[in-house]
């Protein structure tokens, strides 16, 4: 590991832009391409949105964003202490959403999977959720 960071923000949607820009800035020393930076920003935005919308459902709570920088990659985790995910496999299916009435697409996890190289979700009902994602720099193909 060559660097690490941790930030805690309240679960407010106005913090999404701040969080994704912060993580993108943290990766700059690895000279990522514009596409790689955008992939990271997009994935962080998806995870933070899910923490706010699904984890806390608009209630107060903290979101913890941690990142570890390696020579060839960044590992990012987004944690909430909200309601947790009932069935992770089902939640990660394309188009699966528990909030279709809000025009949610159910594509957040698909975006995270496509834009990052690796994703791992740990969740416990009533305790919260941690999404950990890794992006390798200089690789042509993201996992699809």
């Amino acid at each position, binding site marked *: 590991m060559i660097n690490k960071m941790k930030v805690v923000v309240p679960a407010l*949607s*106005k913090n*999404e*832009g701040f969080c*994704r820009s912060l993580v993108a800035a943290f990766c700059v020393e690895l000279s990522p391409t*514009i*596409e790689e930076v*955008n*992939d990271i*920003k*997009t994935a962080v*935005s*998806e995870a933070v*949105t899910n923490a*706010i*919308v699904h984890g806390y459902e608009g209630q107060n709570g903290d979101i913890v964003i941690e990142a570890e920088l390696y020579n060839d990659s960044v590992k990012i985790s987004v944690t909430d202490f909200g309601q947790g995910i009932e069935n992770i496999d089902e939640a990660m299916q394309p188009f699966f959403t528990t909030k279709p009435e*809000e*025009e*949610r*697409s159910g*594509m*957040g996890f*698909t*975006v995270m999977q*496509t*834009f990052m190289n690796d994703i791992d979700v740990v969740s416990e009902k009533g305790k919260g959720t941690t999404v950990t994602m890794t992006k390798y720099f200089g690789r042509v193909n993201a996992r699809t």
Partner: protein
Amino acid sequence: MTINFKLRGNNLEVFLFGELDESVAVKTRETLNYLIDTYSFSAMVLDLKGVNFLDSTGMGVVLGRYKKLRRLGRGLFLRNVNAQVDKVFATCGLYDIVEKQY
């Protein structure tokens, strides 16, 4: 999010500026719905030149407007989609439904 618009021929051209995520999704949806309900036009052209970031929540706003317009027998076209937005749209399968106009 700033939204400008102009009627041009039979179309309503709408120009969005900003980052389209959860923090502005409801307001953007309401403003676009207002334009759809207020003006008569045959197609909405959504110009995204000024949108430098959008995630699946933003995609949902666009898809939702497409569905609303279709119910009314009107069209939706996308214009000036930047690379980040394009990748989100493609990943979400939006182009299977909504046409891109270059």
